[in-house]
């Protein structure tokens, strides 16, 4: 099940907690992985850990010209891009009334516009191959909203609408476009929360714990697989029951 031998996967944000585990699990299923991220050192460390079938493709997604170049670099390194996982994301939290245009725009650029550009950049190859998998990593807050995160929530909800629209357009070409929406996952991003915040969140999670990055990665592996060919335009919520959508 879920054998990805011979498939080439580009993962953005592979230097982060969730992205690294997504790359690890795709690689474990036999895929060749292109590891993209802003910081090169963790990418090199991950490549060293994985061994063969791993390529480091540094890219700063807030530089939209660099984003345009990434699909080509990935195709040059791996031959094709069969699986694209748009996992990279940033937060710049602030109360809505205090949120600056820059805080708004920078989050939209990285989380939504870069995702759009990368999807577009890999689409030609997937259409020719009549096979492709796009998995966009959204967030529970894209569906529920979250105070202080109007920009982040907008970008993550935008991702869902974009993914569904693209899924319609390319379904007949053997390409699926799906979304994984993590709840609260133990990563550097959620480490920033204080104990009170964490306790408050815990009370809202029926599973009674934060999720692990590997639990997001497993959902991505499923949606990237040949077995998931009939699943498209879906949002898979992985949140311990925090929001049953």
């Amino acid at each position: 099940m879920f054998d990805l031998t011979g498939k080439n996967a580009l993962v953005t944000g592979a230097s982060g907690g969730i992205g690294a585990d997504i790359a690890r699990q795709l690689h474990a299923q036999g895929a060749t992985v292109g590891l993209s991220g802003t910081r090169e050192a963790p990418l090199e460390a991950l490549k060293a850990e994985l061994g063969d079938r791993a390529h480091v493709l540094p890219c700063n997604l807030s530089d939209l010209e660099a984003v345009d170049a990434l699909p080509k670099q990935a195709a040059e390194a791996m031959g094709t891009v069969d699986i694209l996982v748009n996992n990279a994301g940033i937060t710049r939290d602030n109360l809505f009334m205090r949120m600056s245009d820059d805080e708004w725009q920078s989050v939209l650029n990285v989380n939504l516009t870069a995702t759009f550009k990368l999807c577009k950049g890999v689409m030609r190859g997937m259409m020719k191959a009549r096979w492709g998998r796009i998995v966009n990593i959204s967030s529970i807050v894209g569906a529920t909203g979250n105070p202080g995160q109007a920009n982040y929530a907008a970008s993550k909800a935008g991702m869902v609408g974009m993914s569904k629209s693209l899924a319609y357009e390319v379904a007949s070409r053997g390409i699926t476009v799906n979304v994984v929406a993590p709840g609260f996952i133990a990563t550097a991003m959620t480490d920033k929360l204080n104990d009170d915040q964490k306790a408050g969140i815990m009370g809202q999670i029926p599973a009674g714990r934060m999720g692990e990055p590997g639990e997001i990665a497993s959902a991505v592996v499923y949606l990237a697989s040949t077995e998931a060919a009939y699943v498209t335009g879906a949002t898979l919520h992985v949140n311990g029951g925090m929001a049953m959508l």
Partner: protein
Amino acid sequence: MSDVADRVKKIVVEHLGVEEDKVTENASFIDDLGADSLDTVELVMAFEEEFGIEIPDDAAENIQTFGDAVKFIKEAS
């Protein structure tokens, strides 16, 4: 018929699965040859590769018939 037209016709016949004699000068990909809008995108991609040219999006939108395609490619290559 020119070489360019022959090569374009071959791509159209293969991609859309239509009879060769249906691919006439004024045949519209969408209205006459059964293409959907994504087919026209794929046809343009195939023309770009066959002829080693780049067809910008605004030009691609104006390529609606077999004749349009042949004319554009002759001018571009």
